[in-house]
């Protein structure tokens, strides 16, 4: 029985919204809706505070998450708004590339935006990422859309 009942998209996003409003864990990842009037709750902003023992420590990274009509059957599109040098992030656009980020490539409907942000925070502290040279804080990716 467990897990066989799929919560429909909108109610799932309302749950995520409420969880995000309450605040998550130690506060190093958070997210909220961009447009409080959008009944379909598509655009979100996520924030990650860079993990200890990495070049990202204490930095604040902003991301944009977009949950389309097929969420959570399909993952949201995720891109960094703050410039960052990470192996799974496109250097020009900030897009988190599914083929280099397992959670998006092997997406399951139980995964949440919180899971994505938490996993990206772990990525920042991974051996192949934690020492990568970064630009000064506060620079943004160029927005193409």
């Amino acid at each position, binding site marked *: *029985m467990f897990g*066989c*009942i*799929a*919560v*429909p998209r*909108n*109610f799932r996003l*309302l749950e995520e*919204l409420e969880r995000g409003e309450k605040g998550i864990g130690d506060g190093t990842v958070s997210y909220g809706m961009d447009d*409080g*009037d959008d*009944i379909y*709750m598509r655009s979100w902003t996520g924030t990650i505070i860079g993990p200890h023992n990495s070049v990202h420590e204490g930095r604040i990274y902003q991301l944009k998450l977009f949950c389309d009509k097929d969420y959570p059957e399909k993952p949201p599109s995720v891109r960094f708004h703050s410039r960052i040098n990470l192996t799974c992030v496109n250097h020009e656009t900030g897009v988190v590339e599914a083929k280099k980020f397992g959670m998006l490539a092997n997406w399951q409907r139980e995964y949440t935006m919180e899971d994505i942000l938490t996993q990206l925070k772990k990525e920042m502290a991974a051996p192949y990422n934690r020492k990568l040279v970064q630009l000064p804080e506060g620079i943004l990716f160029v927005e193409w859309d």
Partner: protein
Amino acid sequence: MANSNLPRRIIKETQRLLSEPAPGISASPSEDNMRYFNVMILGPTQSPYEGGVFKLELFLPEEYPMAAPKVRFLTKIYHPNIDKLGRICLDILKDKWSPALQIRTVLLSIQALLSAPNPDDPLSENIAKHWKTNETEAVETAKEWTRLYASGA
């Protein structure tokens, strides 16, 4: 597939909703998820919502009937107990839920809430304030929104 374990109670409730719909209310389960209903409520006569057709969505969580259904408006509505995302402030959807209640009773209560907005227990602070300070004008806005967003298109 996900519907093979649908509890008998939900099947019964669904059949009755379809065969004997309550006046001004329709609810039909979605094809791919029998716990997810498309709902329409007609704005009650003598209310600012008269003439409006309001779309809602309703979902029966795994714990139903031990937990309340989840319901929200998809049509924009100007009402002190309904917020911008269509979420509804209604006691029977929260702490006053009882397994003796049904989908039908929930929808009838929502219909009744349209006839009797309660600005003393608001979900939208601004709308409630409007209602309390200038009810005539708030009602006019509610009528205007009904024309704009709920005209049944």
